[in-house]
């Protein structure tokens, strides 16, 4: 996932981050599990073009996202 603006999804827990990753993968979307830049554990990184549909999907699946940042 190189080039362009990327979105970072921050979660309360690593389990939620991994749950979100699995949900996005099943929905045909690409997201990377990366080190959480704000602390220990994980965050998700994805193309900003897919952010809206990713958040819609996660909302539908009941996976809470704590914060979204743009990189």
């Amino acid at each position: 996932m190189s080039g362009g603006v990327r979105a970072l999804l921050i979660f309360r827990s690593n389990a939620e981050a991994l749950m979100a990753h699995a949900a996005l993968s099943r929905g045909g979307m690409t997201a990377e599990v990366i080190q959480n830049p704000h602390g220990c554990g994980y965050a998700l990184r994805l193309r900003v073009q897919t952010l809206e549909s990713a958040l819609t999907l996660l909302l539908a699946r009941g996976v809470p996202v704590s914060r979204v940042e743009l990189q």
Partner: protein
Amino acid sequence: MRIVPPAGRPRQRPLPGPWRSAHEAGEYVYLDHAATSYPKPPEVIAAMVEYMRCSGGNPGRSGHRLSIAAAMVIHETREAVATLFGAPDPLRVVFTPNVTYAVNLILKGLLRPGDRVVTSSMEHNAVMRPLRALERRGVKLTVVPCDRRGCLDPAGFRCALAGGARLAVVNHASNVTGTILPLAELSQAAHAAGALLLADVAQTGGVCPVDMQALGVDILAFTGHKGLLGAPGTGGLILGPRVDPESIEPLVCGGTGSQSELEEQPDYLPDRFESGTANGVGLAGLRAGVSYVLRQGVQNIRAHERELTWLLLDGLARIPGVTVHGPQDPDKSVAVVSFSVPAMPAGEVGTQLEEDFGLLCRTGLHCAPAAHKTIGTLPGGTVRMSLGLTNTEADVERAIEAVAEVARR
């Protein structure tokens, strides 16, 4: 006594075959699956080795690739367990070192002095010991008697709950007699009384269909190393939607890899109850074990074990001097059969079965004195043979012939 075969009993055999060879070289027959399943499928062992070789990071702590690889294995295990037990939200699957820990977590975390808890007289000490300890601290305990087959009358359970209760806790199947309790009816009774139902599925997980939503189970406690075919050191809980995690005090607090800036324990799942580094290697094996069970189909495993149980019950019932305990009906039990040879202590029978016939089973009280008191086998206990996925009709025939020989001595 002749045991009536189940009507239309299926012949479908999910047996794996090749990996039985480890214990079927003829030297022994393993009949102790209620204690732990053995042997494990090769993919379980391979998954554990693979985890140790390739996923060596600490799951959920560091953020590097090996940590992420380890955490993904654990998340996949969470999803597999949720699928097996019909749980809609994998985040409400909490891993613990075993089912005893899981049961203790709920009983000690939920119940307060003055609360009332209702249970059956067929429970394992994983339930009875923490309940007796809580009783000394002011929790009111009601034990509903089962009959000598280990069966629980839902009407009696409903009566016991009539005064209201915080929690009802029962096993799904007895580890002594195999008797299956009617969880759906018991959960209805619990809910009518305003209580949550905690079900211990140590003896049914992976070998009987268990859908916690359909059964109305609020909290499900499972072990990973029996019917789920994983390694010892794995187990857990699934909390249903009626359970507020914040109403349960954690048994252990500590690092979770989340909100590390806080000195307070997280209030969300699974972190609230999963402090400390997870047993990643064990959970990797559990993922493979549950996947194996899902591929075979729980209904097929159940059909296989039901048929072998019928053969064993039928054979034992024909041996003079042998008393079989429990429902003696494979439709009302899992593949756990307890029997006595009245002229001989259970331990002596077990020793002769191993030394002279290579049969590995368990004797005594099976950590369930309440159940033995219920079926009338306290203090001597019983000989327990418990069948599993890898057993065959030949194993059962060998067991029946051996018991007949020992009973003749």
